């Protein structure tokens, strides 16, 4: 009686004509079985087995079975193999863990495990492994290791026990107790029976990944086992020889196990090296069989051996041999082999020993890129080219990748674009080449060039004086093409706006021609690009006063001044007024050339990492970075801000909004006009530059929300005070979160003014009604701080987000924080939430740069004891100088380097702007690493300010 018989019984000899017929047949069969199981009649084992088997079959056909469990459990206690087998089968398929029968089942399994009958033990172990639930692990995790290491257990049972334990360990590792059995498991590697060894190796590999120390002894055993297999003649292992390859599975598993550990001590290492060499040698031998299985098995062992060699990364000789071996595979007929070879070579390329060897295959790889039919293989080839690139072959590789880009598969284009951009930047010897490459890139695959790429070009062009003229000339020429990509227009607009004057001398690119060229593209572009071009025009007004009237005419035209898009309209209006009202001096100041960007980790690299997932590229990048640091130290961006408190999204990062205002960063051009009024009223002190393309600085809700999501939500759980502290050094983040509501903040401050965007996110799917946020200030606070908000819409739809803008003016220094009270109706109940808004005095800090002597002179001027506040406190966080630096900058003051004689100390300076007064502040932070203490000294011209700032800053470290 087997399942096939049942199938015939249940679905009838003739196949059922239709689904309905099948259902009828099954209903009938079920009714029959039910009447048999009714309980008053005792069934013999055979029929019980038959009906349980039928039920199982019906269940597998997709029908619900809700009875028969008891009968199946009864079958477990039978002494016949077939009955027991069906019982176990039914239970492993149908019984769920919360069933009340589980105790009976566990009992039966226990009996079988103790029965010493190998077949019954095997069945029980298989059942445990098949169910593999937590409950099973709880019941048997202690038992199975005993069976595994008991001396008198049969080989087949040992095998099953090892695999069963592996399964339990994978589902619930915490329940498998580690004990003295572990050392005995290791000795299973010496077992006579190769099946046991194979099962044990799988188990040990998994266990060793978690507890490498306990299984350290397995290394030498594994090596000796491996060498015995490798050196054995193909006939020695009889059953375990697969198409003339001795025990390929076991070899692969042993090699994997060895990859959990660093290279072993010299004695064992010699033997291992011998093994690996033998494997490499065998690969050279002519194949013993033409069957594909033979070569598959052989290559599997070979590839695993190569990854072990790469993992150890210590034997130059082996690495080079491995590389050569892979080189042969690069031209192999088999696509899979080519793929694997390329993949392994990628990792080989990062090893210092084999990097050169890999490079010798560059021609083959490039050829593969051109002729390969399989997309995935081509993609590996691109990866490999990227990995093997260094200064010597960068030009060739970049050129090849650009060539390939034109025909590349759409799915991988963006990645190639990023890679080309990174390589071009990293290995650029001469930046004219870099500019050419990127422009080419935009020309070939404009759609796939992400924002980051062209941001980066502009950063580099602005930071390097030597290429600016060339860049302006090249973009000007590139723009002359009748159809050019929007990204090119963006780059062109930005660069000409900054450096158009450098090529204005040439009559072929006179100011007017430049302007007309850009303006001819204007109408074909999207809104953000047009906005950028408008900024370019106003920059032209400054650069070339002779075309001022032309530009004013353009700005004045109805299509600009009355544009439907608010952003464009506003820019047009503001720029037009700016150009007519402001004197040339002011224009020159306002529209000055952009200052160099701070060097930081390339955002393109960050993007590529994000795309590829953290593991693969990062390691590669890390290692590559170390190697190339000396080659290309200048451009390799030092990860200054990598350790900063928050990681803002890349686009914000580029223009320096994220972690706090870097010195001289351009604040956002006004979107409400009030900031622009400032520019006019205080032209002398304002060092504002209008940057083309700076609309990225605006806190667009999308950007904000994406950032909000990325914040870890658990932060909301902390106390309110702590929340406020969190925001002392940063401006954006999640202020509050519960099951219903998320409140996010995004704020910007300048001088004594500030603007805060509060985002209320409805996390539920139902509407919030009468949603009323109110700001509550105490009387005292009201006189010091002026807050203005607009009411928000009283209904918030499910899943929606509403934004509220708070305009802030600091009148005088203050200590308290305003409270944000939110009331709304959710479902039938009234909800009330109060949080402190993190508006603290330090937000109105403006950094001041000063030299050492200036600093100490002012320090001495503020020697009045009321003006100084000192606080000595214990560090709450690890004392990392980079983080401390970032925090001081985030706090708002300038960080003054090389001022304090002791380089470990931090010194900062800034001015607190209020409407009534400007208060100068100096601060000094002295860390004491041994005692894990800080001493913070603050001197300001006002006592209360010193007090408050000291309180705020002390909480941060």
């Amino acid at each position: 009686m087997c399942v096939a018989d049942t199938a015939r019984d249940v679905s009838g000899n003739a196949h059922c004509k239709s689904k309905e017929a099948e259902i009828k047949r099954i209903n009938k069969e079920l009714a029959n079985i039910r009447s048999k199981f009714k309980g008053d009649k005792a069934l013999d084992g055979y029929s019980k087995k038959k009906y349980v088997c039928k039920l199982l079959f019906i269940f597998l056909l997709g029908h619900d079975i809700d009875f028969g469990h008891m009968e199946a459990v009864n079958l477990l206690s039978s002494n016949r193999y077939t009955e027991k087998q069906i019982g176990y089968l039914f239970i492993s398929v149908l019984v769920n863990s919360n069933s009340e029968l589980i105790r009976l089942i566990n009992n039966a399994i226990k009996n079988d495990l103790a029965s010493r009958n190998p077949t019954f033990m095997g069945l029980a172990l298989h059942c445990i492994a098949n169910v593999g639930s937590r409950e099973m692990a709880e019941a048997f995790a202690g038992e199975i290791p005993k069976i595994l290491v008991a001396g008198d257990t049969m080989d087949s049972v040992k095998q099953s026990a090892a695999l069963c334990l592996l399964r339990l360990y994978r589902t619930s590792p915490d329940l498998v107790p580690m004990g003295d059995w572990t050392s005995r498991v290791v000795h299973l590697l010496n077992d006579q029976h190769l099946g046991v060894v194979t099962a044990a190796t799988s188990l040990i590999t998994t266990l060793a990944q978690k507890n490498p120390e306990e299984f350290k002894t397995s290394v030498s055993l594994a090596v000796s086992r491996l060498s015995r297999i490798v050196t054995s003649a193909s006939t020695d292992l009889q059953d375990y020889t697969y198409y003339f390859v001795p025990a390929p599975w076991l070899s692969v598993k042993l090699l994997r196990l060895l990859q959990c550990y660093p290279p072993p001590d010299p004695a064992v290492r010699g033997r291992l090296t011998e093994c690996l060499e033998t494997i490499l040698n065998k690969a050279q031998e002519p194949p013993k069989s033409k069957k594909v299985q033979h070569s598959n098995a052989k290559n599997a062992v070979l590839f695993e051996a190569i990854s072990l060699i790469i993992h150890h990364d210590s034997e130059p000789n082996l690495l080079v041999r491995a590389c050569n071996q892979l080189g042969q595979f690069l031209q192999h007929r088999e696509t899979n082999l080519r793929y694997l070879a390329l993949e392994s070579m990628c990792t080989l390329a990062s090893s210092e020993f084999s990097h050169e060897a890999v490079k010798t295959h560059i021609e083959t790889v490039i050829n593969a890129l051109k002729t390969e039919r399989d997309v995935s293989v081509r993609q590996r080839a691109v990866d490999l080219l990227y990995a093997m690139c260094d200064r010597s072959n960068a030009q060739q590789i970049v050129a090849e990748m650009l060539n390939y880009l034109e025909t590349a598969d759409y799915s991988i284009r963006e990645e190639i674009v990023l890679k080309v951009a990174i390589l071009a930047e990293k290995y650029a010897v001469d930046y004219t080449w870099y500019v050419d490459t990127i422009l080419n890139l935009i020309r070939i695959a404009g759609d796939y060039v992400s924002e980051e790429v062209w941001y980066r070009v502009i950063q580099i062009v602005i930071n390097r004086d030597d290429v600016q003229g060339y860049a302006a000339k090249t973009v000007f020429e590139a723009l002359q093409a009748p159809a050019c990509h929007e990204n090119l227009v963006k780059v062109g607009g930005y660069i000409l706006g900054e450096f158009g004057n450098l090529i204005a001398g040439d009559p072929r690119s006179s100011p007017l021609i430049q302007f007309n060229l850009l303006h001819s593209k204007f109408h074909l572009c999207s809104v953000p690009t047009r906005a950028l071009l408008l900024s370019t025009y106003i920059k032209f007004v400054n650069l070339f006063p002779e075309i001022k009237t032309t530009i004013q005419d353009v700005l004045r035209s109805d299509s600009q001044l009355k544009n439907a898009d608010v952003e464009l309209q506003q820019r047009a209006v503001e720029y037009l007024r700016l150009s007519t009202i402001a004197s040339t001096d002011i224009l020159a100041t306002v529209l000055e050339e952009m200052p160099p960007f701070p060097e930081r980790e390339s955002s393109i690299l960050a993007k590529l990492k994000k795309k590829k997932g953290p593991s693969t590229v990062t390691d590669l990048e890390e290692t590559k970075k170390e190697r190339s640091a000396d080659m290309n130290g200048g451009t390799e961006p030092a990860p200054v801000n990598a350790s900063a408190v928050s990681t803002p999204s890349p686009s914000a990062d580029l223009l320096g909004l994220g972690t706090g205002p870097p010195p001289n960063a351009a604040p956002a051009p006004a979107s409400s006009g009030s900031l622009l009024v400032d520019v006019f009223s205080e032209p002398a002190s304002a060092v504002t530059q209008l940057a083309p393309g700076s609309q990225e600085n605006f806190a667009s809700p999308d950007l904000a929300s994406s950032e909000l999501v990325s914040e870890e939500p658990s932060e909301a759980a902390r106390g309110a005070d702590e929340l406020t502290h969190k925001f002392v050094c940063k401006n954006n983040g999640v202020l509050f979160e519960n099951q219903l509501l998320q409140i996010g903040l995004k704020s910007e401050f300048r001088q004594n003014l500030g603007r805060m965007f509060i985002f209320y996110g409805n996390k539920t799917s139902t509407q919030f009604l009468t949603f009323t946020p109110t700001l509550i200030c105490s009387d005292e606070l009201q006189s010091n701080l002026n807050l203005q908000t607009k009411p928000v819409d009283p209904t918030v739809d499910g899943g929606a987000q509403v934004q509220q803008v708070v305009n802030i003016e600091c009148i005088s220094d203050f200590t308290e924080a305003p409270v944000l009270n939110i009331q709304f109706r959710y479902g039938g109940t009234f909800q009330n939430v109060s949080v402190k808004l993190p508006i603290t005095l330090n937000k109105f800090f403006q950094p001041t740069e000063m030299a050492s002597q200036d600093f100490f002179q002012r320090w001495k001027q503020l020697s009045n004891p009321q003006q100084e506040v000192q606080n000595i406190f214990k560090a709450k966080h690890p004392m990392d100088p980079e983080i401390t630096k970032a925090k001081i900058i985030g706090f708002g003051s300038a960080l003054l380097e090389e001022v304090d004689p002791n380089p470990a100390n931090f010194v900062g300076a800034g001015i607190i702007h209020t409407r009534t007064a400007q208060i100068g502040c100096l601060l000094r932070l002295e860390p004491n690493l041994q005692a894990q203490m800080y001493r913070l000294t603050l001197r300001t011209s006002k006592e209360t300010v010193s007090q408050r700032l000291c309180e705020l800053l002390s909480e941060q470290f």
Partner: protein
Amino acid sequence: MIGGLFIYNHKGEVLISRVYRDDIGRNAVDAFRVNVIHARQQVRSPVTNIARTSFFHVKRSNIWLAAVTKQNVNAAMVFEFLYKMCDVMAAYFGKISEENIKNNFVLIYELLDEILDFGYPQNSETGALKTFITQQGIKSQLTKEEQSQITSQVTGQIGWRREGIKYRRNELFLDVLESVNLLMSPQGQVLSAHVSGRVVMKSYLSGMPECKFGMNDKIVIEKQGKGTADETGKSGKQSIAIDDCTFHQCVRLSKFDSERSISFIPPDGEFELMRYRTTKDIILPFRVIPLVREVGRTKLEVKVVIKSNFKPSLLAQKIEVRIPTPLNTSGVQVICMKGKAKYKASENAIVWKIKRMAGMKESQISAEIELLPTNDKKKWARPPISMNFEVPFAPSGLKVRYLKVFEPKLNYSDHDVIKWVRYIGRSGIYETRC
């Protein structure tokens, strides 16, 4: 506009495939098979949307008929066409089965060419079709005259009837076929009830007769009754309110709209004159009184009484009561006073059949159901008890008042026509909750 029409057997093999428009590709055939016929979960909806293509299907025994379109068509139109298609096929070769379709596939393609043109439904009147699509193989060539006659008829104003029909006996049959649907609460409260009826006419009349059909429609009766006040009181009881009705294409709708009189020139042979629906004052032929008692976890006692509620002189036929049983039934004992009852395991129900039953009688069945205890906590949902029957009257109360025939050209009058009227009331979905 139908893009294509496919007929499948139960295995999903295509028997007939006719594509009318280019936007339907070959893969549409497979899409329907994979997503509907072979779907893992049984597809209940008759309209399926797969990759912006709509599939409308009807099932006749083991045969699937599917109409496919990419446009936003009137679904009711498509189904009307599919039903008509079934009728046409049935009229040509009887039962729609795989074998019949295979044997007649040339004919079916011929029919499809005729009744659907570029996806637009055309004349699907069986009588008219039979004049020029025949099954007798190649007949002796039609004469020119005959050919032109067919053309003029098919393209003419009265496309459903040809001229020059002659019968020795002028005869007509009227069938009022109704199906009554009911959902009743265990306490006997009507939760929903409606009757959908059809008036089917079989006419064997000479010439081009003009017919006028009258029934006890409330509006007509009231209109007529305005003159004599006492008559409205009398006939008001007997008149019925029709909720909505549709007519065969031969009925002059303008006349119906203005005078509410149903006048037409009938096609020769059988056709469906009208379809209607009523929801008020329905005569429910049977009342089902269920009694279900759970005795412990393993036993269930069911008692069902049915009462017939019509004139004692009438006889109901083919009565069948279906009492659902729980899914864990392990044994059933049934006792019934009348008819035969049996537990059908394959349908999970007790089926009680009574051949005949007169009006104003009652009958009873009681059953003991043994249950197998399961570890499933789900409670039995207690599906409703359903019933099937056939009664010789119209549950809606519809009465045919007259059917007048005028044939001015030929010399036979209304009195010479032999008229037969028959009422049949059947059960639709007739359920009582228990």
